């Protein structure tokens, strides 16, 4: 990636940035011209109540602004970053597809349409993470991201479907509107847990957080765009959107607050274990996502504002920081912070961006201060829990100060690394985007251009939010007091980074027992389970297959028998022809039994032929001369065929029947089952309407006296047509085998 091999230039694809730019401008123009929300609805699959329903309110607009705004700069950055990448065309195509998917996901109102775009972002993310697919690490990271986010996506589908069925609406707005009336529905907790599973996986919440750092094997523009600024926020977005409906639900609040807190803290700790700059940033992103989840979970309206503000701010500083990491990687060929020192002279512009973004990151607590105050005042009874949460936020915040220090200070200051060759600043296309984004972020801090949008977004989450709350949140005193504490702790973390790192790195049990290890364990377990099942069910032994199939058929047949109203009826009348049946029956049974006892194959064949001869004899005394004749003739021709095929079966002796007890049991069960079925049939009165009609119409209408034959060639001639097709095809099918036998040595 560091440009060791120069590739022919080709198109830079810089112009692609115009697409998000145009979309961004359209959005801005729209926001000025047209009050929110904007709605669009077109029929798609009315039979499934799936319509192309889109609804853009404040929250959607905020997300759209991020997606298209940051998207514009990411495309510019990528055109520089990938200038030497020969297959960048594909990457740009997927990136563009991703952007469109994001646009769709955050504007969709119909839950199925939302799900569609949601999955599309997972898919494109998969392709982008695996861009360096020649490396096995990239492949497995891509697969991990795919399995976790799409797995969560499936849960989301289940959850959304349930939600829709509970509320009777297939649109998000409809669900949010109708939900309060259905809070007592017993299905609701499951629906919400499923939805949250989807959101948590997408937004890398504990215990699904580990895919995000691994996804850093994607090229940096992708990391900056998908895995920090936009896609990972999709889960937050969905939770925030549903929060208006489920805010008062304890389950909702508890799950979100707990998960968010654990994620934020844990990711902060893990950030300290990393040496790779991008992975450090990724951990801190997870931490920020945890904070966002926690904020969504908090019940008071102010938290809603905090969510949107933090979400917005995070995107504006984290994307530039990723680009900084990318620039360093690009220039030096490494991202390991131990090898990165004093780069500020070689890369002054990058250093400047890093400092500005780091400041923003460290100076963020405006939202936290706000939250802390609001939380303390709003909730009184649950003081201890919430106190814990607020301690956690201080810790998390301090970590982000430390991370900002690492990214913005540590790598640029200090003595330059001498072991490496000369390092040059990167091209303008890789400098301008982070600089622009970070400056934009500062502009929003000082000039509240974005305030209306943020407020509109916050009101989607917390409809009760008043205009006053916004200004209150910017109270300088709170800001300062909170900042003071966190900066102090953060500074301590920053200074003791290496010592903390070594201490944490030594805790190998974290690698062994963490969720990431669990994921690997599950994958291995799946393979082992599959192997075990294969040995059990696909062992390759035909007799075993037959045994299992017979046992299953018998068992399931018995189940059906038990569960239906069956009665047995055995009649023991003994008409004269029954003596003939007895003779035939003895032949049948004796033949079948002898086939078991005999060893000479020829004799086995003869004995089994008796079953046919016996049947024919039976037919003779049951008014079926045609059948008897056919059966006799078939047995005769069978003898001819079998006698000519028998020599191919090797020695004349067949294997002795092993007489396994289990097989005997199966056979006995099969026999008993047959007997019961026939006895059952005997109890039913025969319905001869078809036979009567055939008998009455055979001669007058079909000109034949032999009713069986008339049925065969006329009344049910189609059966016969199929049957002779089977006969003819049986020869056709056997031709290759016959040819092989004729050659003498089949291969």
């Amino acid at each position: 990636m560091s440009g060791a091999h120069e590739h022919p230039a080709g198109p830079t694809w810089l112009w692609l940035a115009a697409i998000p730019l145009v979309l961004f401008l359209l959005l801005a123009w729209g926001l000025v011209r047209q009050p929110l929300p904007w709605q669009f609805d077109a029929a798609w699959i009315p039979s499934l109540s799936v319509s192309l329903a889109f609804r853009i309110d404040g929250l959607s607009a905020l997300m759209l602004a991020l997606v298209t705004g940051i998207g514009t700069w990411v495309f510019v950055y990528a055109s520089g970053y990938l200038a030497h990448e020969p297959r960048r065309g594909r990457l740009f195509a997927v990136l563009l597809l991703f952007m469109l998917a994001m646009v769709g996901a955050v504007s969709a109102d119909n839950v199925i349409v939302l799900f569609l775009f949601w999955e599309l972002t997972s898919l494109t993310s998969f392709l982008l993470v695996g861009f360096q697919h020649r490396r096995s690490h990239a492949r497995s990271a891509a697969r991990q991201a795919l399995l976790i986010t799409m797995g969560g996506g499936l849960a989301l589908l289940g959850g959304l479907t349930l939600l829709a069925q509970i509320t009777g609406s297939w649109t998000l707005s409809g669900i949010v509107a109708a939900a309060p009336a259905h809070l007592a529905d017993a299905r609701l907790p499951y629906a919400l847990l499923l939805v949250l599973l989807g959101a948590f996986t997408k937004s890398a919440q504990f215990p699904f957080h580990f895919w995000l750092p691994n996804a850093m094997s994607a090229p940096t523009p992708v990391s900056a765009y998908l895995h920090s600024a936009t896609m990972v926020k999709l889960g937050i977005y969905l939770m925030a959107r549903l929060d208006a409906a489920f805010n008062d639900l304890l389950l909702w609040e508890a799950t979100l607050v707990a998960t968010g807190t654990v994620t934020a803290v844990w990711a902060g700790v893990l950030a300290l274990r990393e040496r790779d700059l991008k992975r450090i940033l990724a951990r801190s992103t997870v931490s920020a996502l945890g904070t966002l989840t926690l904020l969504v979970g908090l019940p008071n309206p102010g938290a809603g504002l905090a969510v949107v503000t933090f979400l917005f701010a995070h995107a504006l500083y984290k994307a530039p920081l990723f680009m900084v990491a990318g620039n360093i990687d690009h220039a030096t060929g490494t991202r390991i912070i131990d090898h990165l020192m004093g780069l500020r002279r070689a890369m002054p512009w990058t250093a400047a961006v890093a400092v500005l973004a780091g400041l923003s990151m460290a100076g963020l607590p405006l939202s936290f201060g706000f939250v802390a105050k609001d939380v303390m005042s709003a909730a009184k009874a649950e003081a201890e829990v919430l106190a814990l949460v607020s301690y956690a936020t201080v810790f998390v915040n301090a970590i982000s100060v430390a991370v900002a220090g690492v990214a913005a200070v540590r790598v640029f200051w200090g003595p330059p690394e001498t072991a490496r060759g000369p390092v040059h600043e990167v091209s303008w296309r890789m400098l301008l985007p982070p600089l622009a984004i970070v400056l934009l972020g500062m502009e929003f801090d000082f000039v509240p251009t974005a305030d209306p949008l943020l407020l509109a977004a916050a009101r989607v989450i917390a409809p009760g939010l008043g205009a006053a709350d916004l200004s209150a949140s910017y109270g300088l005193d709170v800001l300062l007091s909170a900042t003071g504490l966190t900066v102090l702790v953060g500074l301590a973390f920053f200074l003791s980074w290496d010592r903390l790192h070594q201490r944490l790195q030594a805790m190998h049990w974290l690698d062994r027992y963490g969720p990431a290890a669990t994921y690997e364990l599950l994958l291995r377990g799946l393979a082992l389970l599959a192997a075990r099942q294969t040995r059990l069910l696909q062992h390759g032994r035909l007799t075993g297959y037959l045994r299992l199939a017979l046992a299953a058929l018998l068992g399931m047949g018995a189940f059906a028998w038990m569960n239906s109203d069956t009665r047995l009826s055995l009649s023991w009348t003994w008409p004269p022809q029954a003596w003939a049946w007895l003779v035939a029956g003895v032949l049948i049974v004796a033949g079948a039994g002898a086939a078991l006892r005999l060893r000479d194959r020829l004799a086995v064949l003869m004995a089994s032929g008796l079953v046919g001869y016996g049947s024919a004899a039976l037919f003779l005394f049951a008014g079926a001369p045609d059948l008897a004749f056919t059966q006799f003739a078939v047995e005769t021709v069978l003898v001819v065929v079998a006698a000519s095929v028998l020599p191919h079966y090797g020695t004349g002796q067949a294997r002795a029947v092993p007489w396994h007890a289990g097989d005997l049991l199966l056979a006995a069960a099969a026999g008993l089952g047959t007997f019961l079925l026939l006895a059952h049939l005997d109890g039913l009165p025969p319905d001869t309407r078809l036979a009567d009609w055939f008998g009455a119409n055979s001669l007058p209408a079909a000109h034949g006296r032999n009713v069986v034959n008339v049925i065969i060639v006329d009344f049910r001639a189609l059966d016969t047509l199929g049957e002779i097709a089977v006969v003819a095809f049986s020869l056709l099918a056997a031709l290759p085998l016959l040819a092989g036998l004729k050659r003498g040595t089949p291969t």
Partner: protein
Amino acid sequence: MSPRSTLLAQSARPVYLLLLTAALWILLRGHNEPGGGFIGGLVAVAGSSLLAITLGTHSARRWQPLPPLSLAMLGVGLALASGLVGPVTGLPFLTHVWTDSGLSTVMLFDLGVFCAVWGALTGYVYALLEEG
């Protein structure tokens, strides 16, 4: 003992002709008495097998109108064709038609059955008997 029996060799052809005659007879009267295409076909197979066993498959093939597979396919084709008379006249598939002289597509159909059985099964018999 001579390797081949002259008694069997000499009686095979007349008996074959007898069997074939019987087969055709069974085929033709099957509509009114026991018999029909299947049984007729099976009897013909027995006849051809007799020839193949006693005189070899070469003469058995010579005494059959078509090679086995072709005969079998012709049989299926005949049966299909007899069924197509209906659709041509706007009636459902397999609607049989009778002429005043007693001829009918039923006979064609049954002949198809006969040929299919005769062809397919003799195909097996010949191929198996003439190995190596």
